[in-house]
């Protein structure tokens, strides 16, 4: 589609640089999607794009400053580099300034190979299978809604310190939502995927059909604290929020939930009663993510100076104890603590857990089984109190069996607090977050049993 190769664009940018240092990266991306409602297509698309980012570093005497300029397409490289250098000269000294990375991390891809691509062809088999599922749902007087997307992004990152790093990132997801014609019953199933070869429309449709069956009997329950089984998807949405909050600098400055009264942070403090490990691993099978940092803008949790920094596996919580926070190199130097980079996946595991969700359900005398959580927002950063709602299936479990669907609830809960109150974790499995899957799809989580989940009020929504 474009004549200049992405690698050449990176080299041209680096060659044009007159700054003290430069990072240049190009992200070649392609994507295809299908969206449907009430057993019929609503929107679709096939997209290709190229993002070119140049970050220049200029020492103005008072300290190193950085300037980032990003453009799509195939921009004029000289103009782009000049704009980036001007932005750096116009900026004040950066607090996060440290020497750029010079050593390539492990797990680097083939620099010279062309970018990976996807297209609408990824749905050639999927679409007819989905059409068949629509027909079967129609026969049951049910409606299917949902979305399928596949994206491929190839990143080429080069630096004036000699880095030439490449990473291919496939991202796919399917969500299938079943409803009765009056929308009174609603259930959900979803999966994340790298290539759609492991996606079974029939399997997802069967899951939806089973839950629609569970929903035929309905009981109303009031707000209150309930023993609750959180399935992996719901757990992932809560843990992702916790992960996004794990900024060491904010904790050290006393302004997030990981700040310790009296000063410092809570690293070393036991957060979970169970031996839970929360980790990220760029090489986790099926959840592979970039093993190095690609940063377009500095923040408390990432630095443009850390571009190309290795992002190895890291345990954030180990055996229930907080062990690491996200810490760019500059803040690590300032606080004599290890630098740690966020990875684009998240895994929660109790290594001693063997029970499946079905086994946990069978062992439940009376409780609620949730499907997904929705509209999660922070109410109080000090406790990381989050509010949100249950969605597409709250089921009453009695005597080890699902006996009815229950009304939805608004919850008010802190994921940090929740870890401390969780009494059982099941086997970890790959899952698709419901709320955050626009940004985060690579998760493996266990189902959790919480004895007293706070259902703050009833939601009449179905």
């Amino acid at each position, binding site marked *: 589609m474009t004549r200049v190769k992405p690698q050449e664009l990176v080299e041209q940018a680096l060659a044009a640089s007159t700054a003290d240092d430069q990072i240049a990266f190009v992200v070649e991306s392609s*994507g295809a999607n299908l969206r449907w409602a009430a057993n019929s297509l609503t929107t*679709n698309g096939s997209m290709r794009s190229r993002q070119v980012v140049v970050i220049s570093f200029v020492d103005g005497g008072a300290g190193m400053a950085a300037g980032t300029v990003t453009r*799509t397409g195939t921009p004029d490289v000289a103009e782009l580099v000049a704009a980036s250098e001007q932005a750096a000269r116009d900026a004040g000294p950066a607090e996060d300034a440290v020497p750029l990375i010079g050593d390539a991390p492990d797990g680097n891809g083939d620099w010279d190979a062309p970018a990976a691509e996807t297209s609408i062809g990824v749905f050639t088999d999927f*679409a007819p299978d989905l059409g068949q599922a629509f027909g079967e749902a129609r026969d049951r007087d049910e409606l299917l809604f949902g979305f399928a997307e596949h994206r491929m992004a190839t990143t080429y990152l080069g630096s004036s310190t000699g880095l030439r790093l490449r990473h291919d990132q496939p991202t796919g997801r399917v969500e299938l939502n079943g409803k009765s014609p009056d929308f009174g019953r609603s259930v959900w199933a979803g999966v994340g995927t790298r290539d759609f070869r492991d996606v079974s429309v029939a399997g997802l449709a069967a899951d939806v059909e089973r839950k629609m069956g569970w929903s035929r009997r309905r009981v109303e329950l009031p707000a209150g604290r309930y023993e609750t089984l959180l399935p992996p998807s719901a757990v992932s949405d809560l843990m992702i929020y916790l992960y996004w909050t794990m900024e060491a600098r904010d904790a050290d400055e*006393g302004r997030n939930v990981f700040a310790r009264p009296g000063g410092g942070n809570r690293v070393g403090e036991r957060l979970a009663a169970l031996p839970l490990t929360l980790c990220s691993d760029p090489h986790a099978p099926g959840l592979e993510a970039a093993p190095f940092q690609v940063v377009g803008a500095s923040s408390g949790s990432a630095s443009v100076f850390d571009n190309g920094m290795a992002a190895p596996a890291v345990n954030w919580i180990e055996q229930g104890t907080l062990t690491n926070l996200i810490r760019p190199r500059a803040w690590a130097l300032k606080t004599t603590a290890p630098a740690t980079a966020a990875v684009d996946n998240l895994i929660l595991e109790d290594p001693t857990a063997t029970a499946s969700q079905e086994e946990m359900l069978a062992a439940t005398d009376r409780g609620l089984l949730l499907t997904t959580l929705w*509209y999660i927002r922070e109410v109080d950063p000090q406790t990381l109190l989050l509010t949100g709602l249950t969605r597409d299936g709250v089921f009453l479990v009695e005597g080890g069996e699902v006996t009815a669907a229950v009304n939805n609830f608004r919850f*008010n809960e802190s994921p940090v607090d929740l870890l401390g109150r969780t009494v059982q974790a099941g086997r970890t499995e790959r899952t698709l977050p419901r709320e955050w899957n626009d940004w985060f799809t690579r998760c493996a989580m266990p189902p959790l049993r919480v004895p007293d989940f706070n259902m703050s009020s009833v939601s009449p929504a179905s």
Partner: protein
Amino acid sequence: MSARSVDESFLALPLSALTDAALTRAVDLGCEHADIRVERLRTQTISLRDARPEASIDGEDLGLSVRVVHEGTWGFAAGVVLTAAEAVRLAEEAVAVAQVSAAINTDPVELAPEPVYPDAVFVSAYDVDPFEVPDPEKTGLLTDLSEQLLAADGVEHVQTRCMHVKEQKYYADTAGTRTRQQRIRIQPEFTALTVDRATGSFESMRTLAPPVGRGWEYLTGTGWDWRAELAEIPELLREKTKAPSVEAGRHDLVVDPSNLWLTIHESIGHATELDRALGYEAAYAGTSFATVDKLGTLQYGSALMNVTGDRTALHGLSTVGWDDEGVAGQQWDIVKDGVLVGYQVDRNMARLRALGRSNGCAFADSPGHVPVQRMANVSLRPDPDGPSTEALIAGVEHGIYVVGDKSWSIDMQRYNFQFTGQRFYRIEGGRLAGQLRDVAYQATTTDFWGSMSVVGGPDTYVLGGAMNCGKAQPGQVAPVSHGCPVALFEGVNILNTVQEAGR
């Protein structure tokens, strides 16, 4: 409409050549309808942490997309190479997408008619293009304002962020419409934090200034007095840290426009999007309790409630000349005297529900995304004879005055919501009696709007808004404004958030 013109650098793009190539190819391939959009989106976000540079990103997203209706099925393709050959390729790919999608399409697409606008131009109302202001001048002013706040007693940290956007769009379709538009918007924010290291507690307070469809002049004295607001924040923050915790229960609420805009956005704006009511967003953003069978009969709120949809409001974030389907901007009623009377629609939905003309609510947030039904500026009209804020508070014996937005959440049919704010004041005997802490209000949409007993006058009306309203899959963000006066709501359920956290 502004006397300004669309930048020559955008008009100099090969718009006609791209149009001819894409639309001709689409027609040749048998499409019933085709449109092309060429868009350039400039964004700059400047972030400061404690008055020192944290990040400045200058971005430009330039690309094109072709959308077709082929044998009754949508097809869409987008790319970034602005050549006639690529426009042809996108037309072909859009048709291919439609052909794959036909396997799951059972509702043939038809579009509501709209007049043809062969040479339409719109430029939003602003004085100073922020992209023409030198970066040192912008960063310098933000640093100066941040330092003013950081120098105050008790303010330990200051987060500063200013985002500005210049959106340029060209739209053309097979009916003959050609529109060229340029819009500018800006969102500055300053947040002060105080930290008590001994106890581990901390508290924050953010400026109330809304994002608006204005230029850099917004930060230099037009439309908001930043220095005056920043001067007040430290004392307000100190008072907040010492404020008593709220007593949970039913309270009368006086809700300031700086908070009420978001309640309108969530409980009215989204609830009256017809795509939601029809189920198009059912698997993601959700549906709506305000279903089409209730149009004209649903008692949405008290008889004092009048809400309009508006794509023409001055400085509105959702204000356009024409939407992304070539439909002219309009204003219309959504709730009249408390009753649901209208929806926000695009051309396909208007046709589907026999509503006649679309009211112009199609929008795509980038050249890479398909237009979907997005929100107009949805606003609560003031009472022409309504009171001032002081007079309204004077009429409340016991209550709470809510200022500024913070946390927000609502269920997928737009019933159950929970909001917090920047500041909550106790009202006793018609007077403010100090701040309260740990407050959230929780209600059901129709109960809440049904409890509205006083609507403030025109002098209390403020245009609030958001730059990043999320919807659709793949996810898109849209800017939207919501105007409203101050209003009184009786007997609203107040939560104590510390108790909710189980502490």
